[in-house]
């Protein structure tokens, strides 16, 4: 039987606010346990939550960027359950009326654009962490993360393969980092995805029973986990079994998903509107202010790179893979006008390779757009060959400085002077009359012999195009 896979994703994006969603405590990662938990985060008797305005603004920013609808009035609700790292015994979240409804993320996969619809995005607080090691059999509670603002972004079940799901997650990751609302650090848990996966016979309308998979803390694990889960569900059904609705945990070490809790264990969270918080009212003026401050979004920028710079769709996609890279490219274009393809090649080629090698983000690149621009201009005007340019690039990367200074000091200037090249060629022809005769007799392979020797004679600095032209003329007897 042919199976169709149905996947929806729930993503928790940690909002990059300085303070927590309902308290003034800092949100920085990695502090000493409980050093960033104030009275409100500890849920001492009598404390009350106060909404963080920036968190709301980030939610609006996301809603606009994803073309969703911003609720003029949304409600915070309490989700009640007991757990030691949930200090109040309830999580403040949004239930019936989220701050953002609808919207979509356009996913590119193998040259196709696939729209994935969003159900909603809502604001909520994170819980703390339970630490089970190093406490002699007891558990430690770190409430630094408690109250960190999250935007939970829920997609419709629009994805049909693990690859599509990963492409969606990547596109979403790019969007939230692009608009500056999330640092996107998956290792630190700033961007966490849960996948709802089900399968059904191709052509069937009704959805199959779904499982929710948690602990997908990298795109690679997400793909593997979903693929495992698809195989598991199909295998189960084909062998006469049934999929049970449950939450499953992905174990990357064993590359499998394991049952965590079934639907029967599902808790009744007893949601009700939080009486400590007034309805969140967002006026049109605020929405418009946020809209006007939005940066150009990745899809629009990609299209502009194609139309304005004449880049291929592929190059434009690669360059807009992240906001910082796109910004770098645009800054570079400022220094090397009219050479979009050259710039694109260097950004996605040499520069990316060097960044990757040294494990750097592009915003921490050791070569600035201005420095790289100085280098590319010397390719543009024929001073440097590609090979020489790479040598300068390496020097710039390790020692800094400016391309022009390095070209001088290394004597790497390309020889483009016609008379100099002609002299070299003439001397060469005079020294090898036999080969000249062979060439003229039609043995064109000998051409390479002359190029090689000419280059050798000038230390490899000859402008190859010019050298070729001169050689062709002279050998032809002109």
């Amino acid at each position: 039987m042919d199976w169709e896979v149905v996947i929806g994703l729930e993503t928790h994006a940690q909002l990059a606010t300085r303070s927590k969603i309902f308290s003034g405590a800092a949100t920085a990662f990695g502090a000493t346990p409980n050093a960033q938990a104030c009275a409100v985060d500890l849920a001492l008797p009598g404390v009350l939550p106060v909404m963080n305005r920036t968190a709301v603004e980030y939610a609006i920013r996301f809603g606009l960027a994803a073309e969703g609808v911003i609720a003029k009035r949304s409600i915070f609700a309490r989700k009640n359950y007991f757990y030691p790292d949930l200090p109040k015994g309830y999580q403040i979240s949004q239930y019936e009326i989220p701050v953002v409804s609808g919207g979509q993320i356009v996913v590119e996969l193998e040259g196709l654009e696939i729209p994935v619809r969003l159900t909603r995005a809502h604001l909520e607080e994170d819980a703390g962490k339970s630490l089970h090691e190093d406490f002699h059999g007891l558990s430690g509670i770190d409430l630094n993360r408690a109250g960190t603002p999250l935007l939970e972004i829920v997609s419709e079940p629009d994805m049909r393969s693990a690859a599509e799901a990963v492409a969606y997650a990547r596109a979403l990751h790019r969007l939230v980092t692009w608009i500056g609302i999330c640092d996107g650090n998956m290792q630190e848990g700033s961007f966490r995805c849960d996948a709802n996966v089900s399968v059904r016979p191709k052509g069937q309308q009704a959805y199959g029973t779904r499982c929710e998979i948690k602990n997908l803390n990298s795109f690679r694990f997400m793909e593997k986990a979903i693929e495992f889960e698809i195989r598991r569900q199909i295998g189960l059904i084909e062998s006469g079994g049934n999929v049970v609705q449950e939450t499953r945990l992905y174990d990357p070490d064993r590359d499998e998903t394991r049952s965590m809790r079934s639907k029967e264990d599902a808790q009744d969270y007893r949601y009700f509107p939080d009486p400590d918080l007034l309805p969140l009212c967002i006026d049109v003026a605020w929405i418009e202010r946020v809209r006007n401050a939005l940066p150009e979004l990745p899809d629009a920028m990609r299209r502009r790179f194609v139309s304005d710079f004449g880049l291929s769709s592929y190059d434009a996609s690669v360059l807009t893979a992240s906001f910082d890279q796109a910004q770098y490219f645009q800054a570079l274009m400022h220094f090397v006008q009219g050479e979009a393809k050259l710039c694109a090649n260097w950004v996605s080629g040499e520069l990316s390779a060097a960044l990757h090698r040294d494990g750097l983000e592009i915003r921490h690149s050791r070569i600035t757009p201005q420095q790289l621009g100085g280098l590319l201009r010397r390719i543009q005007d024929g001073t440097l060959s590609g090979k020489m340019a790479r040598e300068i690039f390496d020097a710039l990367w390790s020692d800094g400085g400016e391309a022009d200074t390095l070209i001088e000091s290394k004597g790497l200037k390309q020889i483009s002077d016609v008379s100099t090249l002609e002299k070299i060629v003439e001397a060469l022809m005079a020294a090898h009359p036999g080969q000249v005769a062979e060439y003229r007799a039609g043995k064109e392979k000998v051409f390479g012999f002359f190029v090689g020797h000419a280059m050798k004679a000038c230390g490899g600095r000859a402008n190859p195009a010019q050298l070729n032209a001169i050689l062709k003329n002279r050998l032809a007897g002109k």
Partner: protein
Amino acid sequence: MNLATTSLKQLAGALRKRQVSSRELAQAYLERIARLDPMLGAFITTDHECTLQQADAADSRIASGTAGPLTGIPVAHKDIFCTQGWLTTCGSKMLSNFVSPYDAHVIEQFKAAGALILGKTNMDEFAMGSSNETSFYGTVKNPWDLTRVPGGSSGGSAAAVAARLAPAATATDTGGSIRQPAALCGISGIKPTYGLVSRYGMIAYASSLDQGGVVAPSAEDLGIVLNTMVGFDARDSTSIQRPSEDYTALLEQPLHGLRIGLPKEFFSGGVSADVERAIEAALQEYERLGATRVDISLPNTALSVPVYYVLAPAEASSNLSRFDGVRFGWRAPQYDDLADMYERSRAQGFGSEVKRRILTGTYVLSRGYYDAYYLQAQRVRRLIVNDFKNAFTQCDVIMGPSTPTVAFGFGEKTGDPVQMYLSDIFTISVNLAGLPGLSIPAGFGQGGLPVGLQLIGDYFSEAHLLNLAHRYQQATDWHSRIPALASA
């Protein structure tokens, strides 16, 4: 100086004129507490050293000429207000080991004003009760009759003021917890408009209903204290930002033309004859002062008790989840695992009335019951709000009894929670609507026990309500009567 007969205003005047020092005042009140409170049980905690230190600071401030109206005045605080360095128990075993690391906004306001913390007063556990019989720290006795309840949940504050163990005390009111004990103890008490007094640091019972207020012998003293207590606080999202107001400014205004609305639902049966007689006499007094009576109706009054006992427990069940034995408060000494620790800690730490309300609240919020109970109650709450809106188109103030009867005896209603809940029938709807309410002494009923007259005003009409109460208190002396025990 006879503390039993000196008002807060007079004490403030004496301090300013240096006829008495704050230290002397504090010592005198602490002495009264030491002598009389063992009979009453109004206080859970006193701290002589701390209070006297604050008194000395107040005395320097008075000497330096920077004193405010409350500088040097000892004020007792309901043990629901978190007070830095003080045991803050909320009347519960659950918090019997909780020394607050921070001050409630209300405490901050009093500290800034230079008032002294005289002690923390007893209360029904987590403010759940109408008789002060649910406190882990024992019952509070009514100073007028030690076999009777003082009312609740602010029974300790009310009894302390009635016995003149404090010139004023803070209190909170979720369904009548200021007005009902004020009535039963023969003192004045005001619950301001919801949002006027910050709830930050006031341990939550039912967040949408809880409101801090004050009890004192007279309306004038209430106004003076309210001036310090009211104020915007950014840490409470339901705190209301509005220009500050002097709650004593309108006290002397004449009452000519005042229209008093009398809801027929407050007078039709259910009220004992002695209370009805006292209220009728009070209304006649108001007529002599220039007011007229208007018959009005609050048709949904009877629904206020059931609505309250859905909404308040719902909020409470969630508010009290933080008392889990993990970070502070009572933790069972022995347990098998996490769930067992939760269960035992909460089973041991909470009393039966608190458990009853947590269970009720958990039930009404549960899947399948939420719409029928919680949502339906919210709809009826809206109707109750509308009842008041309509009423205030016909009258300037609503009056009636604060309670159906005078103080009842210990154990009289503990066996029947519904009977206990019905003792708040006249006060609960005011919380549901978020309106200000006031109770003032209006004579005595059966057994020589005080009767309270309730005044309900429109939103933010506190100064006006205090004016009405003050004019009445100028014409009568019920508020200056003190129980025999207090004059000892």
